[in-house]
């Protein structure tokens, strides 16, 4: 009986594998031809467009699907925003839009699965949690150089300063949402409280000065800051590093404007000092005792005035994220403004490899960069409905007093469309923003590695192991809750060595050197 059962199972498995085999043989060629067809069609269309070089208004308008990235907002006014966008795009480029809100956590999977599953996708967002290099190696994006030359003059012009960062192996795959991409480390703080306690907050403060502030705050029962259960490289917000990988998993450039030597930040003296500083802060009671287990967010505690400050990326408009009506917020710079690949590729728009009409997608992308009104619509919604102009200003808007004050109408926190010089800004940012942004970028230095991005395809095993090590060892060091900082850092270093971090950094250095040699 048992033999029969086994043979039955074997037959079953065999049958399955035969079926599976059939499927593969039948499917594979079909897929290939389909791909070739779309590629040919795309090329043909692009060719036609080049000949005509004007928008074809005789055909039916094409609907371009475009994603906006958020945090599961309800976007009740989505249809009205689409109508308003269509009112601009139909007469100008004979296209309509289908705006698709996407949760940031699902960005990568939704995009890859959508492409693999043949869903209608046109303009997709990369960057944020799904990096440009990953998207390119996943085959999600279409090369843009020809399209850009033929139908995207405005898009090419606005993004010219970050053009190098938009390329992988010399081919442009996406357009940056941050054409003014300079960024520096910073600290956002409660200005009302600082004034009250006589704490002097100024650019590039030393850690000793911050520690002194912590003492004053402790007397008042307010925590200096909180790192929580964080496995990030929080040091990056207080330094001018060019970081490869979210937390320097692939190494960092310590002095990015001067030296192209990639280093392991966790083996640096500065990192150990940072951990020691955090331990001092924790031991002195400047950090919450239950910071590791209390899951209240830093944002929430800052708004509730339980925390004085937190480190953040610094740009001229960053402060808007942190303001509220209970107190005045201030922000200081902790490092020089720096232009890095990471800053430019933070959020980008590309065209899906499976898009039926790449030409139309490029028309829309170009219009977004050209037309400030369209960029404002996609960023902030419809005027009068989702936001109102602040009286006495030229380009400052506010959500207050509209149904969108709670971000239920139309809101995207992560997407940035178009030319920042042409779209409006949200209060408390003022009309001076445009000059500030220009100045901040003019003052900035550029990382020697600008335009380069590390291709980690060769190191998936190491990347996974490094990530696991950081998640295990970093939170206690960030929180300053280890008993012996030096021993804990040594332990972290040993674990990273074992995970193969040095190999990854060596590989990264090799790729960077090859890039710079070109």
């Amino acid at each position, binding site marked *: *009986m*048992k033999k*029969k*059962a086994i043979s039955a199972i074997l037959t*079953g498995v065999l049958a*399955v*594998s035969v*079926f*599976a085999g059939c*499927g*593969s043989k039948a*499917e*594979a060629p079909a*897929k290939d031809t389909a791909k070739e067809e779309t590629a040919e069609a795309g090329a043909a269309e692009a060719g036609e467009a080049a000949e005509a070089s004007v928008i074809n208004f005789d055909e039916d308008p094409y609907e371009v699907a475009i994603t906006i990235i958020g945090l599961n907002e309800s976007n009740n006014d989505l249809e009205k925003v689409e109508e308003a966008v269509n009112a601009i795009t139909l007469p100008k480029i004979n296209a309509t839009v289908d705006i698709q809100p996407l949760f940031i956590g699902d960005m*990568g*999977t939704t995009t*890859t*699965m959508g*492409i*693999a599953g043949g869903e209608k996708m046109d303009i997709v967002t990369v960057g944020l949690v*799904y990096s440009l290099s*990953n998207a390119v*190696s*996943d*085959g*999600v994006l279409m090369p843009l150089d020809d399209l850009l030359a033929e139908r995207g003059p405005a898009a090419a012009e606005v993004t010219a300063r970050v053009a190098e960062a938009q390329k992988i192996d010399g081919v442009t795959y996406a357009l940056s949402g941050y054409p003014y991409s300079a960024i520096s480390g910073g600290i956002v703080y409660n200005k009302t409280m600082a004034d009250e306690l006589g704490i002097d907050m100024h650019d590039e403060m030393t850690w000793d000065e911050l520690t002194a502030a912590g003492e004053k705050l402790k007397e008042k029962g307010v925590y200096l800051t909180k790192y929580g*259960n964080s*496995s990030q490289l929080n040091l990056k917000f207080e330094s001018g590093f060019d970081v490869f990988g*979210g937390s320097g998993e692939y190494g960092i450039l310590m002095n990015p404007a001067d030296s192209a030597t990639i280093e392991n930040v966790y083996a640096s003296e500065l990192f150990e000092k940072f951990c020691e500083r955090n331990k001092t802060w924790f031991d002195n009671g400047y950090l919450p*005792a*239950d910071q*590791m*287990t209390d*899951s209240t967010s830093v944002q929430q505690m800052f708004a509730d005035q339980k925390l004085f400050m937190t480190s953040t990326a610094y740009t001229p408009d960053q402060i808007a994220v942190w303001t509220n009506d209970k107190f005045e917020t201030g922000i200081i710079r902790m490092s020089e403004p720096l232009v890095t690949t990471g800053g430019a590729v933070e959020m980008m728009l590309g065209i899906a*490899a499976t898009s039926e009409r790449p030409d139309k997608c490029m028309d829309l992308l170009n219009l977004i960069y050209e037309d400030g009104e369209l960029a404002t619509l996609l960023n902030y919604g419809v005027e009068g409905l989702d936001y109102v102009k602040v009286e006495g200003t030229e380009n400052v808007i506010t959500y207050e007093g509209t149904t969108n004050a709670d971000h239920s109408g139309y809101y995207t926190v992560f997407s940035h469309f178009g030319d920042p010089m042409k779209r409006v800004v949200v209060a408390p940012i003022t009309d001076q923003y445009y000059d500030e942004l220009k100045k901040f970028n003019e003052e900035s230095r550029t990382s020697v590695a600008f335009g380069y991005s590390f291709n980690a395809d060769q190191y*998936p*095993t*190491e*990347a*996974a*192991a490094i*990530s*696991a*090590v950081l*998640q*295990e*060892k*970093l*939170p*206690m060091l960030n929180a300053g*809750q280890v008993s012996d900082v030096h021993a804990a850092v040594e332990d972290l270093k040993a*674990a990273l060595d*074992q*995970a*193969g971090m040095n190999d990854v950094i060596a590989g990264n250095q090799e790729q960077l050197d090859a890039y710079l040699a070109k």
Partner: protein
Amino acid sequence: MSDKKKINSDGTKKRSFGAAFLHWLPFYLMGAPGLIYIFINNYMPLAGLQIAFKNFNFAKGMWDSPWIGFKNFEFLFKSKDAFVIVRNTLAYNIAWIFIGMFVGVGAAILLNEVQSAIAKKFYQTAILLPYLMSMVVIAYLVYAYLSPSSGLITKAIEHLSGKTVQFYQEPKFWPFILTFVNQWRGIGFGMILYLSSLLGIDPGYYEAASLDGATKWQQIRLITIPLLKPTILMLLILNMGQIFRSDFGLFYQVPMMQSPLFPVTQTIDTYVYRALMQLNNVGMSAAASFIQSVVGFIFIVTANKIVAKLDENSALF
């Protein structure tokens, strides 16, 4: 199959194959939806096992992605944590399978002795309730007891001994905390099958035994346990298949993701999650699941072999 044929053809005349097929056709048709479902849901995805051995690329798809041998498996063994992960996963599971068996059988026997129908319903529901709770809720229930600043147990210890125990930084407590939480949560569900088997035991046995002067303990030992044995063994073998999988919610949520506790709370599932959260590497996730299935398969077959040696009738196959 052959057994069935013999029994079913008992007393009826032998049919030809065609006639037999016609006779059973309605039953085949009745079974068809289930078989088709199993084929689609359990057998067709088997083709996807190849992803574990491929450098999966979304644009190329499953069939056209290049083969890379065992490279996807390497990350599991790359760190020195590999031993800890495997030890935690196996040790917790083996311990819990046996503890769960004793506790489940014990609870089922006790509950079976409750006479009042209302009380029985009440107890059963009360015991089952935690099983229906989300792990996130359970994590905060535990936190209410163990929180460093306001936990009930932490504060009690502080008042009694003057010392503060940092539960969320001391790995030594967690094997017991996790075992307790796991059993507290799972006991209600674990005993359902035992309870239903108990209800199927003919009360005549017990009546006869008590007439002969058997004590309650003797009745449990000599009647209940032997009659429960097939159920116990079946569940034991089935549980063996899950030996290399862990309850992700329990290990991830209940220790509040505290890294100092990783040496005793990191299992293969949480490790894979943490390692791949940022990478989204489909091939490596597939490799981890593949190992889990293979180990589970080996354990099931081995357990079944052992059981078959001891008692052929109790073996599953």
